[in-house]
């Protein structure tokens, strides 16, 4: 068999061409190309995503039928606890309002939000980022936090194109968010754990961390508002060098089925 056959020559030329393309675009030249393709295809992508809503999680559901009973019991328990907590919070809210009025404090600021549709997600299936259909033209900038349901943190804007933007989700390995445990005030950093969920790291050994505690953004560093909900503590352990505590976090957000998110433009 001749190595330099017509087929192999075509293969080699294609490889050389693509290596050149990779080299050119690795120097930051991919924004106009990506921006234009995203602009042209976003209406189709939006349509595909909206229509897929009806079949949401169908295949995932097939694989998890066995877990449904225990999950249902757990959710019912959680629901009862949340009802009690909600009643308590309503009482505290009234008290807080009264105290603010008496102390002549300004009311808490509302976020300036920009709602947008999710048009695409990681095609390699790691689920660590999304593309949304709003970008520079809607006032979106890199670094802005992205939330769902009025206050649950989903991620952060990393790349902005004229009519679309890339959101790196909180479960991405490279994301690091200054966070705090609501109950104890313990500070730490929330990171992604290789697509396996979330992890809170760098918690001081002297802090009390319990299963079920709520984790929120601490607002340290100024890149994110304080108080955005991240998730709740599942397991508590030690870092490899035993200097800090680590814990896994369960996020209430199902990142694979997100269809609408809000970008916090001002806080």
């Amino acid at each position, binding site marked *: 068999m001749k190595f330099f056959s*017509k*087929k192999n020559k*075509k*293969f080699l030329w*294609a*490889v050389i061409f*693509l*290596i050149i*393309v*990779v*080299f050119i*675009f*690795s120097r930051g030249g*991919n924004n106009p*190309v*990506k921006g234009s*393709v*995203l602009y042209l*295809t976003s209406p*189709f*992508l*939006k349509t*595909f*995503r909206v*229509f*897929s*809503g009806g*079949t*949401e*999680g*169908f*295949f*995932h559901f097939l*694989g998890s039928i066995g877990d449904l009973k225990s999950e249902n019991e757990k959710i019912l328990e959680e629901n009862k606890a949340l009802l009690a907590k909600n009643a308590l919070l309503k009482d505290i809210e009234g008290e807080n309002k009264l105290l603010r009025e008496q102390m002549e404090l300004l009311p808490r600021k509302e976020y300036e939000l920009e709602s947008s549709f999710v*048009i*695409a*997600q*990681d*095609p*390699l*299936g*790691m*689920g*660590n*980022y999304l*593309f949304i259909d709003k970008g520079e033209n809607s006032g979106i900038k890199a670094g802005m936090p992205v939330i769902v349901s009025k206050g649950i943190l989903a991620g952060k804007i990393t790349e902005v194109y004229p009519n679309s933007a*890339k959101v790196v989700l909180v479960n*991405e*390995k*490279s994301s690091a968010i200054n966070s705090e445990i609501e109950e104890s005030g313990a500070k730490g950093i929330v990171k992604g754990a*290789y*697509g*396996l969920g979330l992890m809170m790291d760098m918690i001081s050994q002297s802090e009390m961390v319990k299963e079920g505690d709520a984790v929120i953004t601490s607002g340290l560093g100024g890149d994110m508002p304080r108080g955005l909900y991240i998730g709740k503590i599942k397991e508590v352990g030690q870092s490899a060098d035993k200097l800090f505590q680590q814990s896994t976090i369960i996020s209430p957000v199902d*990142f*694979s*089925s997100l*269809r609408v998110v809000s970008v916090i433009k001002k806080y």
Partner: protein
Amino acid sequence: MRNFFFVIFCAAVVFLQVSSAGVIFGSERVPNFALALVISLVLVLGFEKSLAWIILTGILVDVYSGWIIGMDALVMIIIAWVVSALLSVADIKSRKSLFFPALFLLSAGFALIYDILAGIFMHVAILWLNIGGSYFRVNYSGWDYTFKIFFTALSVYAVYYFVERINRLFSRPAPAFVRK
């Protein structure tokens, strides 16, 4: 006309993978429809005739991935070439009873190879091209990954069917009255 249909079909497969597959299958189990398309194109058209469609599909996937444009296309071209080399040794298309199980195994195997190659290329890009970004990590063990491979292998039947149909539709000789 055939080229127009192939462009539409390649784009539709990529759109399905980036926009709907995560919602339908769950984000950790997204089947690699693009790979199913590459395998089907090589089986139906051969490596040389499918080269342009493979590059188009790869570049479209790259636009929606966090990768540098061209990286996925490179992985796909290598896989297409290996599939074509395998087909020249073992002609699975002519063995009707073996074709479907062989297609399933071929797709499952290459879905795994795709992720391994993608991981290697990402490491090389980060180290040699001095770009920022996190390493591409796949959790090869566990049910999610098994399902992902299984769904990819299943999806190749549907994709192969459409590629075959499009090709057959436009390969037919024109009716006699048209030729006259």
